């Protein structure tokens, strides 16, 4: 990671992060020298590409195919054209209100969680980048939750927040004489989900930021210190600008990750508090899951919903990238 941050400046920032620096070598010479065939690189790419094709490319196009048909209850059905898309965009249809309610819920979570998780990750990384005793232990501690599966995280925080025997609920009742109904009323339900998500995923952002920070030359800080800049000035004028490509990466990944919210509300609130629109914390992906894999299993309708949400994610990612790359500091 540190080498990425200091990579040459040819490509776009994100491209450089994802694809490497792309510096040119006299390729043919090298090839001849090591006996490389022209198709050798493709051989190296093949293992991943095959898995990518089977598990992502194929399902994606198959999903598009299904969304134009009427698949339900575990069996294939006839071609129905745009029926499901029409329903999703017709306000009077029975699908409309619940689907868009779940999309709005997802957007609420993206808006709330992205600044929080990016900001907290940056903050933690700055702390962990200091010279302090047991630094590696702390780095480990913050990263460990990220290795857990969502079912474990959901259960842990359900036990913290549930209204009957939740640790937080009981502790607050004992010490404050009052506790909100964490999982059954808003804004508390969203706050519980945010706390669980923060605890679970903060380690990843922190580690990425930390790697970026370690790639910043110490000379810059020394020079700044000589000029009399304090810590905050150093952070604003050295750390932040140097981290910009990393920041773009983390924010993009964070938005995508937040769009994918599903397990925490599914396990902690069940999508509730209940509302006539299908639950106040039901995110789009949970709604899609319920439609496609519960009860009647309306797979085609769910596929159409998934594609609409995926299209939104692409748009948001593009906007986000444009915003960051057009800015000039």
């Amino acid at each position, binding site marked *: 990671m540190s080498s990425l941050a200091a990579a040459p400046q040819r490509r776009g920032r994100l491209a450089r992060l994802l694809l490497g620096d792309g510096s040119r070598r006299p390729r043919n010479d090298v090839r001849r020298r090591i006996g490389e065939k022209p198709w050798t690189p493709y051989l190296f790419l093949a293992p991943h590409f095959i898995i990518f094709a089977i598990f992502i490319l194929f399902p994606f196009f198959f999903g598009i195919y299904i969304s134009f048909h009427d698949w339900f209850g575990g069996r294939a059905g006839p071609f129905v054209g745009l029926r499901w898309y029409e329903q999703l965009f017709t306000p009077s249809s029975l699908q409309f209100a619940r689907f868009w309610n779940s999309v709005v819920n997802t957007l609420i979570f993206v808006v709330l969680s992205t600044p929080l998780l990016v900001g907290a990750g940056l903050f933690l990384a700055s702390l962990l980048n200091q010279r302090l005793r047991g630094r590696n232990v702390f780095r480990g501690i913050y990263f460990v939750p990220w290795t857990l599966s969502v*079912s474990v995280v959901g259960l842990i925080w359900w036990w913290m927040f549930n209204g009957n025997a939740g640790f937080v609920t009981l502790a607050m009742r004992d010490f404050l004489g009052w506790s909100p109904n964490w999982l059954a009323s808003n804004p508390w339900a969203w706050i519980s989900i945010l706390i669980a998500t923060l605890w679970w995923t903060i380690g990843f952002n922190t580690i990425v930021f930390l790697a970026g920070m370690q790639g910043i030359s110490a000379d810059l800080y020394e020079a700044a210190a000589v000029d009399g800049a304090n810590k905050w000035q150093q952070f604003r004028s050295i750390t932040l600008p140097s981290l910009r490509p990393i920041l773009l990466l983390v924010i993009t990944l964070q938005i995508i990750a937040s769009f994918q919210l599903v397990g925490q509300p599914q396990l902690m609130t069940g999508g509730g508090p209940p509302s006539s629109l299908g639950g106040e914390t039901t995110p789009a992906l949970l709604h899609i899951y319920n439609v496609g894999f519960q009860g009647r299993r309306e797979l085609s309708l769910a596929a159409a919903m998934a594609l609409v949400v995926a299209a939104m994610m692409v748009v948001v990612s593009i906007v986000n990238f444009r915003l960051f790359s057009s800015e000039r500091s």
Partner: protein
Amino acid sequence: MTNSAPRRRSRVASSADARRRLSIWPVLAAFVLVAAACSGNQGGQSAGPGASGPSGTGAGDTAAPSDGGSGGIQPPEGDVKLTVWNPFTGPDGNFFNAIVESFNKEHPNIQVTVETQPGAEYVARLEAAQSANQLPHVIAAGYDALPQLVENGILVPIDDLAQQGGYDASMFPEAIWNAGQWKNQRVGIPIDTHPMVFYYNKKLFTEAGLDPEKPPTDKESFEAAIKAISEKTDADGYQMVASGPGANFLVGIQFAALFYQGGGEWTSQDFSEATFNSDAGVQAATYLAHLVKDLGVPKVESDAEINAFQQGKNGMVMSGIWETTRYNDALKDDLGVAPVPEIFGPGTWGGSHNLAVTSAAADDPNLKQAAYYFIDWFSKNSLQWGAAGQIPARNEVRESDEFKNASGEGLLPLIAQMAPMAESVKFLPTIPGGGDLLFVGQGAGEAATLAINGSDPKQALDAAAQYNTEVLKQNKQRYGF
């Protein structure tokens, strides 16, 4: 401003690079695809907080089924290997295995192998097995799953089994027998029913000045018990689920019981219209809301009421019969069980497991014979299935002295106490998606949950019924019923 490197960097990455920057879009797109592709499975059906489904119960004695199999269905000639799938991941799986073990001992030429599959993935695994040509020969499944499995070609009708074995409505409670039927064909032989029953804490009853041997039987005594326990003990008299992952289910079964008690029908005769917004439905949802509004019953998250009852903090609870083991372990002699109080009349919600034959056994006469014989034998020997925590469906088993006078360790004595409920239990229509009327989003359970949270019961039920009528119309067309 000591910073210059990044500034330089951004200037370099200018117009000439715009074209090359395009090359990241496939990568970004890939991320989004990964996101979309992965999201379906995250969270999945993992156990979640507590348990809200009929997974399992059971304790105590191992099974020793009595001799059977002398009915009309004869065992096949020659050696047969039969595979049976069941969804019994709880302790009930052990009882099922024990019954099969004695079958195998008794019939050296028919060897039955049992495979237990997780209930949440049961249908999906059957579908996968179907496409891989690996279907088992016999499956145990809830009645509500049968029509869809028949339509998808996984199960086959077994009218001839019923005929050969002399199975008819006289051998089972009528509702249980009818639930195993789809498009006027027999598709499953019922082995049990698992109704919602009424549990109470005898110790709290005594503390509250109530007679621990006289559980409430009607509206007045039920509400009096709620008040007495709430006022005279530290515990709640009753708790009402109002949110959480299991809310639609846990509220749904209470709604269904009251709905049946008021004489409600889920759909019109021809399944073209959802009718749970009838007076019986409104009455049922209104009553659940009334408990919260007028009697001060606290609203809780799903499963909280179950945990509180176990801990002695909740005096009464209506739960599926599969919770008996849990409650029995926690409360021991303080646990009381009884039929659901007749708020509006007799009736309760329930499910029913059936044994059914798959298309894998349909073509080979010997396999088919073995499958029929096994189902017949299991039905006759379902007394021990009662020990697993479910009420045996077959009348002669429930009426046997062995069952009625069951005593000692294990669940059988408790189950025998609850057995009369098998007569009043009712079911959702046996159609594809029948369970959706009650349990999934925009079903009656969700409408009742909204009513508990203060929505107008009639409005909530009307909206849900309107949606389900649309769904029924669509499904009638899709499945031709």
